């Protein structure tokens, strides 16, 4: 299921990989869908009421942010650095909540057979690294003057993509590990 959704998303995203097209709104949609997916995911795996409420809070916050940008202030021109930064930060907090939950209910069953562990570890690697990139993107965008600068700022995205790649490897390793060891 995970791979099917990822493939469909990649397919649609590939139509937007054109440097001249303004894709700010697509990024807003990505932030919204990411927030919905991650908050529901953690809502399902977290156990205590407080932690579940926190996941709902993130979901509501993400939706409100989207409504504010798209329908109230109509901020189509600038990348939502702060939104992405907050999203990453809250994801990190939810990962720590999940780790805390795992430590509270330790069993002798191998943690490596738990897909949620691999997924959360991947989230942690990706979001702990990339929240700095999201946070600084707006500040660095002020220094952009021309096409050359824009290409240069692409290095930031390259750094972010490296993190994305590492976290994807983490999830895939987990999937292979679980399949191999279950057999």
């Amino acid at each position, binding site marked *: 299921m995970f791979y099917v959704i990822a493939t469909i998303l990649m397919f649609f995203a590939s139509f937007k990989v054109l440097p001249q097209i303004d894709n700010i709104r697509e990024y807003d949609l990505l932030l919204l869908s990411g927030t919905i997916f991650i908050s529901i995911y953690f809502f399902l795996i977290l156990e205590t009421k407080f932690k579940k409420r926190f996941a709902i809070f993130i979901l509501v916050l993400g939706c409100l942010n989207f409504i504010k940008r798209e329908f109230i202030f109509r901020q189509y021109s600038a990348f939502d650095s702060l939104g992405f930064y907050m999203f990453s930060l809250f994801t990190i907090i939810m990962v720590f909540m999940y780790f805390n939950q795992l430590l509270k209910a*330790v069993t002798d069953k191998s943690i490596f057979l738990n897909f949620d562990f691999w997924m959360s570890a991947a989230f942690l690697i990706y979001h*702990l690294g990339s929240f700095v990139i999201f946070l600084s993107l707006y500040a660095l965008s002020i220094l952009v003057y021309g096409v050359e600068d824009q290409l240069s700022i692409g290095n930031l995205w390259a750094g972010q993509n490296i993190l994305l790649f590492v976290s994807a490897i983490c999830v895939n390793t987990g999937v292979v590990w679980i399949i191999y060891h279950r057999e």
Partner: protein
Amino acid sequence: MCKHGRSMDNLSQGITIVVGVAISLAVVAVGIISLFLNYRNKRVQAIQEKEKMQAAFNQQLLQSQLEMQEHTSNIISAEIHDNVGQILSLAKVQLNIIDQGETLDRSLLADAKESVSKAMTDLRDIAKSLNSEQIKLSSLQEITELELHRINRLGLMATSLKTNGETKNLQEQKKLIIFRIIQESLQNIIKHSGAKKIEIWFHYEKDNLKIEVVDNGRGFDKTLLEKKEGLGLQNIMSRALVIGGKANINSVPGQGTVITIISPYE
């Protein structure tokens, strides 16, 4: 151009710093995950250790129960043979004499009746000790007292039980294991010490019950314990460890032995 060039430098520098920090933070994330796994492994090990201890405790409990049953059977067998059997034989002889006599000897008949009722009392005592519920319902002190009473009846040595502090209850399973330790200590004293006097002390301390089994026998060389030759004594110490307590054996040749058992209440 110059201004643009400077801003370009600043931008490149900024991007390098940000990417560097981001990758460093990702490395930190990997470190956090490693710490998490390491901490979790330690907790898993602690749980496994606890399970092992619990298994050892259960095994020891079962063994103690079996040994107690065996011990009780031996006592009953000896009591029936040496005590009840003898009394009933005497009663039979008395009844035979009455039967063969021409006149009814009332005093002999009274003696025979007394013998039979004594045998009945002894049988009741035996039935009581056979009942495993009796051990569960009685306190450790009460069942120890019964054990000492039994030794007293052998007439080989004098026994006494003394208490210090306010009586507190022990966990059911711990009670059984401690009682088995006391039984083992008493058996050792009877078999090997040649003592004339046994004294048992129950010290009810704040968190622990401290029991001292003191005898005035011949004692022994403590190197026996180090050489692991005294298996019964080794058993006492390992059992005490299983219930989360400890046992200490102090002995000087010619001056008797003191076995100290310390066990937490919970």
